[in-house]
């Protein structure tokens, strides 16, 4: 018996847009407020209250659509999706049905092997979020409508994802994109990004292809849960197929939840309920027409996207893929890095300074590297001092830290702190002579004992630098020492 399978995953992603106010009313969006205090007649669904569309939400959605290489609808409208649930005060959700704002795009995701893959985007539309039902221990549920009316961008991919890690890569790449665009904080813990994967397997058994029933997984609140839930579903579906032979049929889509404690998917709903959402155009709202002029004004805010930037850093700056990825994780870091390089410094030096010192400091201060108080020009100067051997890497860290506190350039600081390296060959040569005289055993090991040569050489180096009180440029020491011993 031969059996192999392909994993087929499509994602539905809800991204909360970082507008100041809600989608159809002037209530402020603030996380963690007391219940039902960021509500008004409109978002409470009070009788007679009417929605008015937030322009910033439309623009954020269009911007994201453009970043996802979508076609932007030039004419779109708002539809009502009807269903009854206590967190939905009007008992309909204002959404977009047949004319989504964006369609037919793709997202390019980096894969673990350094290549990339295009995942098609079917559509992206705007809709309002529901409130929150809290299920208590008591015999009742409590409803908070602070979140009701929050603008969401719902993004639907084609089922182009073929492994748990691809799904995680897509999720992370999307997070990076929306943060670059500034359209969402994309904080998973605050529920700013919610993923609902649709998973099934195409199993080839004895030359015949079987498709397992599609399951939708809900309640995923971290990238790890997302990745693991798919791995779980793969195993579960495979087992189920082998045990029952059940295959995909219309209507047998079931819903699973993610149990984070037991790290497993749990059946929630066997069959897709006979939903009839009765979509129809919302008569309280008017359509949106996107003109060329408006579209190009929004497009001008696009800027370079993270993956393109990452690839450019590898291609033009000779960075490793890993370094480029670290630098482009946050837009502020990437832009700051790029600016420093453009000030005329060696990219790898800047990269090291930023990744080894800058990010650590920023993290400690809970800020971003561009907000540490150092200009890209000074960072470039610091990198150039390291490059020229004027200071050691260790000193560079000290100077970096000092630069965040004072308004002095790195050379000044190096001088004040006496961190400038000795590059004077004559002075260093004298020290070397002294060390050779004092360490005859090591010298002979370095010269003629292949087993111990490397260690002996290191020892001698250390002695010279110690005698210089750490100020001798190691590069020059190594060079001169080598020449002496070979002589």
């Amino acid at each position, binding site marked *: 018996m031969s059996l192999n399978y392909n994993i087929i995953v499509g994602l539905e992603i*809800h991204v909360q847009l970082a507008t100041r106010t809600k989608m159809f009313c002037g*209530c402020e969006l603030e996380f963690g407020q007391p219940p039902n205090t960021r509500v008004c007649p409109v978002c409470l669904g009070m009788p007679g209250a009417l929605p*008015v569309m937030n*322009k910033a939400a439309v623009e954020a959605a269009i911007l994201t659509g453009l970043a996802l290489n979508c076609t932007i609808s030039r004419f779109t409208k708002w539809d009502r999706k009807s269903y009854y649930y*206590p967190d939905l005060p009007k008992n309909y*959700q204002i959404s977009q049905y047949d004319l989504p704002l964006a369609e037919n795009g793709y997202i390019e995701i980096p894969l673990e092997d350094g290549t990339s893959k295009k995942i098609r985007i079917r559509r992206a539309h705007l809709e309002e979020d529901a409130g929150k039902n809290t299920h208590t221990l008591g015999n009742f549920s409590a409803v*908070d409508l602070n979140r009701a009316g929050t603008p969401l961008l719902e993004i639907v991919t084609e089922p182009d994802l073929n492994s748990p890690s691809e799904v995680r890569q897509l999720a992370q790449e999307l997070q990076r994109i929306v943060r670059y665009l500034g359209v969402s904080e994309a904080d998973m813990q605050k529920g700013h990004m919610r993923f609902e994967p649709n998973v099934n397997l195409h199993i080839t058994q004895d030359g015949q292809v079987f498709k397992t029933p599609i399951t939708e997984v809900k309640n995923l609140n971290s990238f790890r849960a997302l990745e693991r839930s798919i791995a779980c579903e793969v195993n579960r579906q495979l087992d189920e197929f082998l045990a029952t032979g059940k295959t995909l049929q219309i209507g047998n889509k079931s819903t699973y939840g993610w149990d984070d404690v037991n790290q497993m998917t749990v059946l929630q709903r066997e069959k897709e309920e006979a939903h009839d959402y009765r979509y129809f155009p919302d008569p309280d709202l008017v359509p949106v027409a996107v003109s060329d002029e408006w579209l190009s004004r929004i497009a001008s805010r696009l800027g370079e996207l993270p993956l393109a930037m990452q690839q450019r850093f590898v291609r033009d700056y000779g960075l490793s893929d890993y370094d480029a990825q670290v630098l482009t994780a946050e837009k502020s870091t990437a832009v700051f890095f790029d600016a420093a390089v453009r000030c005329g410094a060696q990219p790898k030096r800047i990269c090291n300074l930023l990744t080894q010192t800058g990010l650590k400091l920023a993290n400690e201060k809970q800020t971003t590297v561009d907000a540490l108080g150092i200009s890209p020009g000074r960072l470039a100067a610091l990198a150039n001092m390291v490059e020229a051997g004027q200071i050691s890497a260790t000193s560079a860290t000290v100077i970096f830290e000092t630069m965040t506190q004072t308004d002095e350039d790195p050379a000044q600081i190096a001088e004040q702190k006496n961190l400038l390296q000795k590059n004077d060959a004559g002075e260093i040569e004298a020290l070397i002579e002294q060390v050779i005289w004092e360490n005859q055993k090591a010298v002979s090991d370095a010269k003629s004992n292949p087993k111990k040569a490397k260690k002996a050489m290191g020892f001698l180096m250390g002695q010279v630098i110690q005698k210089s009180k750490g100020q001798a440029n190691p590069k020059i020491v190594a060079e001169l020492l080598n020449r002496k011993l070979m002589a």
Partner: protein
Amino acid sequence: MNHQIDRQLVERAALLSRLELSESEIAQFSTQLSAIVEYIEKINTLHTEHVEPLAHCLPVHNVLRADEPRGSLSNAEALANAPDTIDGYFKVPKILDDNSGA
């Protein structure tokens, strides 16, 4: 198309619109809605292949609001008409299923 609004259709519409109708209401609505729908059928005698649906008479689009806060109600105001509340929340009998659809 000729749609007799039978009991099944009435029950389905009642379920979708969350109306727990009594037996007599179901019977009455079957009769009345059948007569109304039969009358409404006359629109299907018109040829409208080249007619655009007119959802709205106002020729306007792009009514958009600046993203500026306008103030909210206090918790007490928000809950003033609520049939039941608890600790600043709307209170409902326990929700056991997950029918959130957003």
